[in-house]
């Protein structure tokens, strides 16, 4: 037993040492309350729709949502007609016209979200995308990442993205901020190329919600969490059914097992 205890101590020691390492990075983002959290979590559709508005009016200038199609917006509760109208308001390239010149026209629900700058493919090593150059130049050498998966692509994603969006501040006097960079409390290294994207009352919400920086950040993160995991609501609903099914089956088979084994000594 003594030996078992000492091995447990070893494990405990290992666990204790963990926080020491995390400290050198940016501070842990404070936890917000999210509608989509936890096994019962669902999606706050109104918030996701407001978040879509924030994305469209603010973030989409710089950030793409490569993996979304307009039709996907059904997932945040928009109707077919609303989606048609949203798509139609966007002009996208549509191949070549009869003279062989590039043609543009309104998007349809089946189209992918319009990309602000055609994104460079990181796999095409050595092939410098003309737009990548322009793009990097416009943002101090940093590229605005695609946001479709951003909430999954960061540790503690929803809280982190919220913290970055609300974490802009004046740099402390001692901090050496590079030309054109911005100070952010939660971005690792505190220097971010993205200028503060959100300011109070930057958008006007149709439902009358006051557009504070916090509110818009919360909404856009809810939207982005949906964009990253569009299957989430269906997945959890299905999950409950399967979990209950296996619980019942486990109980039943256990009862049968007891019966079958009753005569074995």
């Amino acid at each position, binding site marked *: 037993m003594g*030996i078992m205890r000492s091995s447990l101590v070893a494990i405990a020691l290992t666990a204790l040492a963990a926080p020491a*390492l995390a400290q050198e990075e940016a501070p842990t983002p404070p936890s917000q309350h999210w509608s989509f959290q936890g*096994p019962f979590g669902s999606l706050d559709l109104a918030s996701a729709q407001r978040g879509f508005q924030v994305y469209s009016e603010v973030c989409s200038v710089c950030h793409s949502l490569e*993996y979304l199609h307009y039709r996907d917006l059904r997932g945040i509760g928009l109707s077919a007609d609303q989606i048609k109208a949203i798509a139609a308001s966007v002009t996208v390239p549509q191949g070549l016209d009869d003279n062989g010149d590039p043609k543009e026209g309104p998007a349809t629900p089946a189209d992918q979200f319009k990309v602000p700058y055609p994104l460079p493919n990181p796999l095409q090593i050595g092939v410098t995308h003309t737009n990548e150059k322009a793009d990097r130049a416009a943002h101090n050498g940093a590229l605005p*990442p695609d946001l479709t*998966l951003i909430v999954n*692509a960061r540790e503690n994603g929803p809280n982190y993205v919220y913290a970055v969006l609300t974490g802009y501040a004046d740099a402390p006097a001692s901090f050496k901020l590079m030309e054109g960079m911005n100070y952010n409390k939660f971005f690792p290294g505190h220097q971010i190329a993205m200028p503060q994207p959100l300011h109070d009352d930057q958008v006007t919400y149709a439902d009358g919600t006051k557009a504070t920086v916090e509110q818009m950040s919360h909404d856009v993160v809810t939207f982005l969490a949906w964009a990253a995991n569009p299957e989430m609501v269906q997945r959890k609903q299905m999950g409950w059914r399967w979990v209950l099914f296996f619980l019942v089956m486990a109980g039943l088979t256990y009862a*049968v097992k007891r019966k079958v*084994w009753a005569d*074995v000594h």
Partner: protein
Amino acid sequence: MAEAHKSEFSNPLVNWIDTRLPIFTMMQKEYGTFPTPKNFNYFWNFGALATVSLVIMIVTGIFLAMNYQPNAQLAFDSVQHIMRDVNYGWLIRYIHQNGASMFFITVYIHIFRGMYYGSYKSPRELLWMLGVVILLLMMATAFMGYVLPWGQMSYWGATVITNLFSAFPIVGKPIVTFLWGGYSVSNPTLNRFFSLHYLLPFVLVGVVFLHVAALHVVGSNNPLGIDVKSPQDTVPFHPYYTVKDSVGLCVFFLVYAILVFFAPNFLGDVNNFIPANPLQTPADIVPEWYLLPYYAILRSVPNKLLGVCMMFGSILILFVLPWLDTSKVRSARFRPIYRQIIWVWLAAVIVLGVCGAHKPEGIWVVLARIGTLYYFLHFLVILPILGKLERPLPLPESISRPVIVGGGPMPSGATAKPMEKA
């Protein structure tokens, strides 16, 4: 007509087939009436669970492969296509992704069961060694599968692991170039990994078949670690163990479902949501959890070549475990010291796993070195010596007539009860 096999089955069709190809007789013999020790505890579920895992991986994998594109330009996008546009694609992918974890946890418990009850000892050495082959094949398969979604961790994990071979003098560099099919991990690497990832699971099926065939020759071990002496010691596999395995299977599926539906990315790495980028190295490159202990061993050794050898050695050493353990007694139940140090060994493996998840700095290096040292000490020093020094407790006479310390027959089944978690 030569002397045909005479089938006992009454169904005429079954009888007709069975007379010509006695597969029904075989199933009946191997899974129906197969005499099985009656004192198994629930640890004996894990072999069946591992088999089920393998089948699930193959089925979901084949469906993934219908929509996956093994091309460096398309792979990441095709996985997103599976997740978003393919009907229930997200479900198939999450089952496959988390299935790898379920497969490994199952097999790890299965292996630990073997170590605790001495299942690797004579006459089951070959059965055990086939098991180690299965573990190696699983690791290769999972490693290559993890490369397929072509995220940052896929790419850099593949780079780090394939680069290990460069530690070997002279042949090292050419081997790495050969593995890559080029001068870095790139499209040819992805292509061949996909091809092998599709192939190896079927090789696994073959080795699993041999593993089970060997088991059915020598018979199962049991929690007492003593041989079956008479028919009273056994029950037919069906219905006794089919129903007991079913209980375990339900619990297994319950845990599996919780992972897939409520925490599908819990065991994953956030960096794999970023497409592979050869120009940007992630802050720390870590493998999936099931490979962490080996990774910690690798990184705990300052010399690269030695590190690589110790990492592979940590698994290869399992091949000779039947001969390193010099004790004749199988079950830890009758080995008062082994019964304790086997837990210390497990703790060392867990500590190594935790170390593997952290950058090799400060306390993590120290802990990883202690863990590595202990891991090898256990096999190379403690086990050979312990078998000679330890005084085992008296063994029961048989499974159905156990004898406790001081002798005297007990009411049958008395010692089988405490382990029986049912």
